[in-house]
């Protein structure tokens, strides 16, 4: 087990530093906006002015997790599907329109995917293992597997996180690349992970990322069989799938609350974690099946469960 000692999410929900993120959820609508904390509490104004929304929210969430565990993390593992889109778009526009020969450095420096993990390292003054995983909608799963391996190697605490941001251009990708009725949003979720038990005793039991799955239901059965868990032992399923072979009353569509970004399944994990605390149930499964014929499966377990 890889126990979750702290979760911090900044999303279009009022999710940052809430005791139970499920308490204040509202369904995402076209006009919802990212609900940001006061970033000046997390980043010095001189640095803050350069940071795009994705960098601001990732640093704030990462710092919340680091502060909660007090001892420095020994690895930072970040997943992002599309990276720093605001700065990338800005930089490309400058290339396209610039009249002089010199390009603005800031947008260029901050347009790479690994800016997020790098900046967190600088802000935390933490020079330990630092990795960025970019695997489309499986970016959380990849970063999580890396974090689990880091814990297995003996690192006491690992900072795991995801971040993705929306820009207007993404709406132009509908309906070819993105679903026509989707609401494109931004979001970040960070976790402080350890093999050491957390107070809540809830953690990641297993994770699998599958390219070209045989079928969602088939893969779920295989995944659970490997863990020697029966399908009817699953108490809740968080998914972005419209139809799954589970009783309707236990299935929650996390995308209805997160909106669409390719690492939104991390918000599904946050919802599942808080639900397990509240109900004292044992297992929550996060099923992430969005695009590119891939499937991510994450199982959360509550050691304090009463069933």
């Amino acid at each position, binding site marked *: 087990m890889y126990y979750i000692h702290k979760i911090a999410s900044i999303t279009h929900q009022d999710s940052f530093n809430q005791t139970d993120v499920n308490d204040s959820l509202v369904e995402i609508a076209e006009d919802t906006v990212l609900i940001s904390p006061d970033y000046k509490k997390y980043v010095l*104004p*001189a640095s803050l002015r350069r940071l795009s929304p994705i960098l601001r929210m990732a640093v704030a969430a990462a710092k919340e997790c680091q502060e909660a565990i007090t001892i420095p993390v020994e690895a930072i593992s970040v997943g992002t599907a599309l990276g720093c889109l605001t700065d990338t778009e800005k930089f490309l526009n400058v290339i396209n329109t610039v*009249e002089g020969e*010199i390009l603005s450095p800031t947008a260029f420096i901050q347009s790479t995917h690994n800016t997020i993990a790098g900046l967190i390292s600088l802000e935390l003054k933490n020079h330990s293992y630092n990795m960025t995983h970019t695997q489309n909608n499986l970016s959380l799963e990849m970063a999580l597997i890396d974090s689990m391996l880091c814990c297995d190697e003996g690192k006491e605490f690992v900072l795991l996180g995801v971040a993705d941001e929306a820009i207007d251009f993404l709406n132009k990708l509908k309906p070819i690349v993105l679903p026509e009725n989707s609401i494109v949003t931004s979001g970040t979720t960070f976790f402080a992970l350890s093999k050491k038990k957390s107070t809540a005793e809830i953690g990641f039991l297993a994770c699998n990322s599958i390219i070209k799955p045989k079928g969602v239901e088939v893969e779920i059965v295989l995944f659970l069989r490997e863990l020697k868990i029966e399908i009817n032992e699953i108490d809740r399923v968080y998914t972005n799938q419209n139809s799954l072979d589970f009783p309707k009353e236990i299935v929650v569509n996390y995308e209805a609350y997160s909106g669409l970004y390719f690492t939104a399944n991390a918000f599904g994990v946050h919802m599942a974690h808080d639900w397990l605390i509240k109900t004292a149930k044992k297992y929550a499964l996060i099923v992430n099946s969005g695009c590119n014929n891939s499937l991510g499966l994450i199982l959360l377990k509550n050691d304090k469960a009463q069933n």
Partner: protein
Amino acid sequence: MSELKEKLKTQIIEQLNLEDLTIADIKNDSPLFGDEGLGLDSIDALEFIVLLDSYYGIKIDDPAIAKEIFHSVDSMADFIESKK
């Protein structure tokens, strides 16, 4: 000249994302770099090089003189005027 300085301040605020500052907050003779002034850093110096190139068509070939040019709004305006 004062018109140029006001324009320069607007461009500095925009180019460096100094969102909390207004033109009135930037004094003509205050140092732009270091703790005494606006507290700008080396990346901002690169942004100034881009600013002079894109808005005024001026290239700084000798990095050694950049420190003097970018000392204050006054020194930047003097430099731009001298290149006209």
